[in-house]
């Protein structure tokens, strides 16, 4: 029936199996699935209906699952990656755009009740429910997904030796990423107490351990420990061979990558809880200035730089934040085309791109400095209005930008179900917003002072005080504040992001000598030479091409 539907050219799994029919042997219970096709479609359907839900699994899906399973069991990394990145998504778009895939119970017989494969299948199943199903996951599904992750991590962590599983790095990253995302989703769901029924509240109240922050932390820390990833990174940073310290599990690619991704997971989790110090501390062995083997998954890179940049911004390390954001925004600019055909990933990257541009805009208002030209021009194009408003001390604009760009903060504790407040779920966000806005308010005069300073090379204190309509005393205070806020801690060397020296690299700088302000501005001359050279080369190439075409035409 479905077997003759269009088959993807690059995915000939039916060909692999030489025709329709299930591959796996049926489980117990006296039904032999393969070979039981009577040839009469109506009888077959009846048969299937007896043993499964009323959903009938299309042939093409069955074949895909069997092939997928075989690839996993054969540890055929290439095919597993193909199934994961292409096959699954294509079938999703075709059959399950907004509905769930068949439940694990339904497809279990197709894959011979293969425990490990079913865990992996469920991982994909629930991820899809969260992402595409309109109503989102039910409470029961949230719980089931949690148990599934527990099963997966128990399998990986409690084995005597490395488990015989090879999964592509993208999938490993997605597992960690999704695990934390579902925790985040559950925390927010749980905090919205006022819209829940008594039954729901009772279920939540009596299951405090499900999606508990300690379990999530425990998983991440265990994966880090098991893989010895910190020792490996330390040795790698100093030029040594990570394998010499990795241990049996750490040498195995699955464990090593899960360990690394768990570090990024911890960066994210600590940030969501408002602990920026710990967030950066877990990365202390990762050298971001060296290209490292671990950074091949783009969404991992982007997530990393987003949270690192955000932590720096909250810690008033604007120079480091700006450098971090500019770095990754350039990277996205250059690589975005590669993700055109992976819709979900592309959307995610675009969203993060916008958030980081917004944060970059904020940071550059507070701490103007030169950045890469292409990033700067995009910023001027899309964010000039926002920046202008922020420069004019518009606190509402700061609030709006922060709210758009910030992570979805969480509280580590469940709500008090007996004291229902409508706003409990917003409390973590409101705290971080408050801290941020208080910091901005302390700096609010600085852009104005800066705009006056730009106009002069020397300026008496009395005169500037008159412009700003404040006393000289008050102005001195503001000038000291300017200097204090512009002196950021800046990373200079070593692997730890937390390290740094106090530096002042803002565009406009000054010092006070008695009653006189002396101003130093950074002027950048226009690059005429570079422009002409490039144009000359371009024209030369055109001329050459024309000459070649003329010759060829003869």
């Amino acid at each position, binding site marked *: 029936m479905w077997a003759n539907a269009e088959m993807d050219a690059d995915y000939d799994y039916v060909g692999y199996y030489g025709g329709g029919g299930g591959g796996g042997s049926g489980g117990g219970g006296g039904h032999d699935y393969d070979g039981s096709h009577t040839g009469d479609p109506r009888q077959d359907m009846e048969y299937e209906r007896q043993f499964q839900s009323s959903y009938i699994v299309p042939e093409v899906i069955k074949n895909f699952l069997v092939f997928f399973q075989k690839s996993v069991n054969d540890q055929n990394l290439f095919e597993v990656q193909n199934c994961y990145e292409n096959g699954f998504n294509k079938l999703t778009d075709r059959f399950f755009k907004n509905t769930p895939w068949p439940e694990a119970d339904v497809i279990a017989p197709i894959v011979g009740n293969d425990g490990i494969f079913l865990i992996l299948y469920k991982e994909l199943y629930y991820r899809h429910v969260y992402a595409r199903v309109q109503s989102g996951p039910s409470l029961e599904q949230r719980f089931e997904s949690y148990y599934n992750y527990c099963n997966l991590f128990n399998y990986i962590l409690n084995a005597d030796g490395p488990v015989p599983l090879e999964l592509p790095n993208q999938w490993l990253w997605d597992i960690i990423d999704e695990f934390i995302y579902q925790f985040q989703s559950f925390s927010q769901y749980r905090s919205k107490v006022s819209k829940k029924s008594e039954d729901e509240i009772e279920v939540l109240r009596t299951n405090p351990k499900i999606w508990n922050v300690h379990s999530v932390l*425990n998983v991440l820390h*265990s994966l880090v420990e098991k893989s010895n990833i910190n020792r490996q990174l330390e040795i790698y940073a100093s030029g040594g061979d990570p394998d010499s310290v990795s241990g049996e599990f750490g040498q195995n690619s699955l464990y090593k990558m899960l360990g690394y991704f768990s570090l990024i997971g911890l960066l994210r989790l600590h940030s969501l809880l408002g602990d920026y110090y*710990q967030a950066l501390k877990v990365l202390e062995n990762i050298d971001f200035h060296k290209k490292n083997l671990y950074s091949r998954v783009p969404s991992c890179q982007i997530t990393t730089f987003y949270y690192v940049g955000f932590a720096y911004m909250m810690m008033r390390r604007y120079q480091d934040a700006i450098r971090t954001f500019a770095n990754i925004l350039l990277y996205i600019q250059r690589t975005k085309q590669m993700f055109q055909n992976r819709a979900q990933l592309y959307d995610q990257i675009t969203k993060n791109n916008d958030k980081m541009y917004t944060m970059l805009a904020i940071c550059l208002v507070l701490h103007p400095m030169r950045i890469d030209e292409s990033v700067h021009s995009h910023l001027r194009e899309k964010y000039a209005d926002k920046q202008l408003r922020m420069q004019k001390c518009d606190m509402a604009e700061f609030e709006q930008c922060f709210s758009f760009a910030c992570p979805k903060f969480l509280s580590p504790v469940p709500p008090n179900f007996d004291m229902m407040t409508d706003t409990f779920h917003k*409390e973590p966000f409101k705290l971080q917003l408050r801290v941020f806005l208080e910091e901005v308010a302390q700096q609010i005069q600085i852009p104005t002072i800066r705009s006056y300073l730009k106009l002069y090379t020397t300026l008496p204190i009395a005169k500037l005080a008159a412009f700003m309509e404040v006393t000289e005393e008050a102005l001195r*205070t503001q000038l000291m504040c300017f*200097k204090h806020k512009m002196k950021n801690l800046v990373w200079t060397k070593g692997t730890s992001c937390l390290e740094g020296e106090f530096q002042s690299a803002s565009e406009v700088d000054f010092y006070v000598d008695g009653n006189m302000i002396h101003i130093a501005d950074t002027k950048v001359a226009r690059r005429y030479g570079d422009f002409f050279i490039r144009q000359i080369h371009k024209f030369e190439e055109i001329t050459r091409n024309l000459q070649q075409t003329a010759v060829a035409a003869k």
Partner: protein
Amino acid sequence: MAKSFARSPGYNPENLPTLERYVQMQAAENTYDIEANLAVLKLYQFNPGYFQTEIASLILLKALTNLPHTDFILCKCLIDTNRLNELPVSKILELSELLETCDFERFWAETRDDPDLISSIVGFEDSIRKFICHVVAATFQSIEMEKLQQVLGHVTPMVAAQWVNKYGWTTQSNGMIFVSNQEESIKTKNITEKITFDSVAAIMSSSR
């Protein structure tokens, strides 16, 4: 001790008494351990029932002694809003506000009015003076002696002279303190384009 705890996934509130005593020790002995203090606040965040206002206050005051580092912000981000609005924490937040905006005059006035707030931190005032000198050194090439005395908390000329010596500043005859030669580091920069021979060599050779 704090290092190993920060890495451990325990988050076990049973560790609190030890850590809280450590905070009190820092206050009494003029030492400082940011990681241990953040660990306490994190434990409070995870176990709100264990929150102790007195300890949180000590931690926040200690964070102020580490200015210009932004430890205070890190602490604020871990404390529940309700707790931030309670005394004496709210008062300490006000002090932080004054220091961050360099409103030193009012800062000293506040601490004079409420000496108990900061009395439990040994060496608090001198730590703040260190921060104030850091700001003065960044801002001024020269400053009037009287103004220096003022920002340091209306100290006597003798005390001010001690701070001048400590940072290697020089007293001039006209009542000014020469802080440092800012002219050297704060100069107008003109970033001009450098056209190297290599970049034009290609053009020059092809235009022959």
